[in-house]
Each structure stands twice: as C-alpha cells, then as structure tokens.
C-alpha cells in the first residue's frame, strides 16, 4: 500500500512538473539543463513486442539508468503511428516499413533506426487441409489455402502483421475482397487471432515471437517457416524505432526518446534483445549494430538526397 501511495504522489508531482514544463516550452526553452531524470517517456508499440514481454526486459534497465519511467502503450501498428501523429507519444516501435516510411515522409518522425527482426510463419491445425506443410514458397502456400477454401483468420486490424499478410495476398494475384466465408477478418490482436485459429483449426499468419510465446497453450503447427529457419525472405519481419519530430509537436520528450533509441540500439540493448527467450527459443534478432554504413535505415526506402522537399522545411509549417 505504501508503495502505491508513494507512487501516486510521485505521479501527481510528475503531472505537476509536466504541466510546468509545458508552460516553460511556451515561454522559452530555458531549463533544458534540468536533465531528463524524473520524466516519463511514452512509447507506442505493437502488440507483438508488448505481449511477448520483451519490453519489460528492455525498459527496466533503461529506467534504472536514467531515473525515468517508460509508459508502453500496446496498440496495432496503424494506431500506434496515429497516436504519435497526434503528439500523444514520444517514440514509436513498429513493424511495417511502408507505414513507417509514410510517417516519416509526412514529417512526423525523425531519426529512424532498424532495431531488430524476426519473421512471420504460416501456422495452422496439425491436419493441414490445404497440404502446405514444409513449403518454402509462401505465395504458393497462400494460393493453396485459397484454392481449397480452408479457414483462414486474418488480423484485419491494419497492424504490421495484417499489412504483411495483405502484401502476400497481393503477390498471389488474388483479390481479398472476393474471398468467401473461409476468410475471416478478426480485427483483434495477435494473441486473440491465434486463439481463434486454434478453435477453428484455421490457418493464420503470425509473427514468430507471439507464436513461440503461446505455442504451449495452442494446438497449431508451423507449416511455412520464415527466413530465420530458412524460409522465404518475403516473411521477414523487421522492427524499426522512430522518434516523434519535436518540430511538429513541441511537447514531446524528444531528448528522452533519443536516449531510449540510443539505449536499445546500443550493444547492451541489442544483447538484451539477443538473449530474450520464451519457452527456450530466441524471439527477436538484433539488427542495429553494423560496422558497414547502412544509411537506408535512417530514411524512407528509396529516398535519396536529390529528392526535393527536405523534411525540415516541410515539417515546420
């Protein structure tokens, strides 16, 4: 009880401090040397990183080192980016490169880094009605599911996983809108969709992390592996982290966001990711550290310096 009360007082104090900080940013930018201790970083992220428990592992040492707290809000990728667009979060960790690029091109995000990756797997009931087991071509496997009209549960929530699934259907040349009742859009998080697929013996596309975390509780098998186990590159699932542009939203904790990005892309943070396991299996593969230049991770894909409309101009309106 005492702990809670103290925490509540601290929360009130932090609220007051945040209010004051808001005022001071209006009147001028003095007080910048007060440091970031005691601040709260709001991170919007996807259900897949949150539900695996990885964030708790990363945030605790970060909080200890800087004396700050991290509020992680778990949303779908689309919602997480939308929250950041409104300036309600300071940093975003998501896994849909195309949506991240859009976010940056609109000027809402700065200083993107590749963070880590894992992969997607196609899972389904052990009897495998579409006969896709062991296939190393996910496009063919999806075509087989559609041809046999075997049940398939789609996330249907604009998440990174949903975006990837639609990308694969695109590759098959089939039109999702014309699918029959075998194709269900759940509109739920990954965990819920895996539970639904179990109930119905249906196929679904899942990120490996969530599947591994839940595999003991569900009766589903991997039928198509992702690139981590030698599957097709199309199933790669890269995570990026982006700070919210402080020139667009002057209330964001930009310095704290950069400290966070710095921490989790550092060797220490990357080690934590490397060593995080669920049920004895590694869930995520660090991707930040590279001795070779890797400029493409900082900017939208296909961006080059010749492009007009440089971000600092367009975002300052």
């Amino acid at each position, binding site marked *: *009880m005492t*702990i*809670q009360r103290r*925490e*509540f007082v601290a*929360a009130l104090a932090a*609220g007051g401090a*945040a*209010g004051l900080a*808001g005022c001071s940013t209006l009147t001028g930018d003095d007080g910048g040397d007060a440091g970031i201790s005691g601040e709260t970083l*709001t991170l919007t992220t996807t*259900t897949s990183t949150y*539900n695996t428990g990885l*964030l*708790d*592992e*990363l*945030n*605790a040492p970060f*909080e200890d080192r800087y004396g700050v*707290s*991290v*509020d*992680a*809000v*778990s949303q779908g990728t689309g919602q997480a980016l939308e929250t950041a667009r*409104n*300036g*309600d979060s300071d940093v975003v960790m998501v896994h849909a490169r195309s949506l991240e690029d859009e976010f940056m091109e609109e000027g809402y995000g700065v200083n993107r880094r590749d963070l880590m990756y894992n992969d997607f797997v196609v899972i389904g009931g052990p009897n495998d009605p579409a006969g896709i087991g062991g296939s190393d071509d996910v496009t063919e496997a999806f075509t087989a599911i559609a041809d046999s009209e075997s049940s398939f549960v789609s996330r249907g929530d604009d998440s990174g996983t949903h975006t990837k699934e639609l990308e694969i259907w695109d590759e098959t040349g089939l039109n999702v809108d014309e699918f029959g009742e075998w194709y269900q859009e759940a509109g*739920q*998080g*990954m*965990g*819920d969709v*895996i*539970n639904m697929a179990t109930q119905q013996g249906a196929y679904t596309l899942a990120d490996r992390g969530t599947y591994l*975390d*839940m595999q003991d*509780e*569900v009766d589903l098998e991997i039928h198509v592996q992702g690139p981590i186990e030698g599957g097709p590159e199309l199933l790669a699932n890269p995570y990026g982290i982006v700070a919210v542009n402080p020139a667009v*939203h002057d*209330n964001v904790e930009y310095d704290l966001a950069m400290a966070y990005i710095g921490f989790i892309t550092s060797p220490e943070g990357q080690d934590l990711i490397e060593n995080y396991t669920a049920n004895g299996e590694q869930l995520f593969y660090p991707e930040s550290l590279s001795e070779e230049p890797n400029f493409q991770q900082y900017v939208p894909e296909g961006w080059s310096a010749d492009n007009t409309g440089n971000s600092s101009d367009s975002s300052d309106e």
Partner: protein
Amino acid sequence: MSLESAATVPLFAEFPFEWNYIRSIIVVSLYVSVAAVALSTLCSLPIALAVGFTDFRGKGLLTSIINTGMGFPSVVVGLAVLFTVSNEGPLGSLELVFTREAMIMSQFVLAAPVVTGVSLAAVSSVEQNVRDAAYAMGGTRLDVALVTIKEARYGIATAVLAGFGRAISEVGSVLIVGGNIASADGTSKTRTLTTAIQLEAQRGRFETAMILGVVLLAIVLVVNGIVVRLGSDGGGYR
C-alpha cells in the same frame, strides 16, 4: 517487486511478482472508479435535486437525455475523451492522455448519467409533504434539499453504487484513454482489472486473467450486496 509483500501474503508467496502486479491493478481500478464516481455524485446530486423539484420547459427532454446517457457506449465516450485530452485536442496542453486523470474523466462521463438518472428517480419519489414540513419547521432551501437527500438516501446510495458498477466493469474507454500501461517492474499505472483481463487473455495467460476476473466479480458482488442490504434493512439511521 517487493519482498515484504510476498511475506505478508503467504497465499501468493510463490508469485511475488504476480501478487504485486494484481494488487497494483486493483488499486488503480478502485482509485479511478471511486474518484470518478465521487465526482459524478458531486455533480449529479444538485442536478437531480434541481431537475426533480422545478418545472421548466424542456424538463422531459432533459430527463430523456439523462436516461439516454445511461446507455452511452463506453468506446464512444473513450474516443471523445481521447480527442479532448489528446495533444491536438482542446485540453492537449494538460498532457492528460494515457493518465489516470484521463481515465477518471471518461469514467465520469459514463457514471454521471447513471448517478443522475437513478438519483433523479429516487429524489422525485420523496413526497412534497415531507419537503413542506422541513420548510415549515424553519428550514432553508438548503435544509429542504438535505432532507430530500436523506429521505432518498437508499435510492441515492443505489445510484452511486450503480455508477460505480458501471465504472469498474467498463473496458472500452479506459483502454483507449488510459493505454493499459504497466511499468517494467510489473506495477500498474493505467491498467485496470478489465483491461488487464483482456490483455492477459490475449497473451494466453489465462490463470492470471482468471484471478483478476474473480477479483472483479468479488468487488461487483460486494457492491451489489451493499445495495441489497441498504434496500432491505433501513441502514440504522437514527
């Protein structure tokens, strides 16, 4: 994670982390719901008294608006509050998004019509005779209002508890405006019983979800028990 708490609660001694987690969720749930209902009651009672004992044009319309409010979908309320407190919204500068204060706001909006509607019915059932008696004995308008509240006390208590029941078992709006946040050390910041149950079920941690569900049920049962007791036993007001 605290070792003392594990020691003081032998039942959960094996799961100090879980117990801390569950306890903090209960505290947040109660804090948010009690605060929201207390504020709702402070606003609703004067409204109920004013509406109950004055005649004006549009009284019927106002009453039906209040009654409609009792059925507001919580997700819609959550969205509306989110737009209000979001950085882009009118209250953006207060930085309330993903805080307990924002959750209190949305639960206030949900509970206030319930408290107002039920206490309006209770207050309206107080006989004019009794109010006249209070006035005739030298009571001021405030005294008459207080007598009305006392006469309607079981109905008002029912209203408050109904508002509490609505607030504590509601999931949509607190999820949207609160963000279902727990710290890395496993204590809840804006995670309530309902949002925690949803998350734990999603994670496949059904045991934790069940424990939380039992706690929520117990709270709701106790509250309903109090309502029933108030209704049957006169409450010992002497």
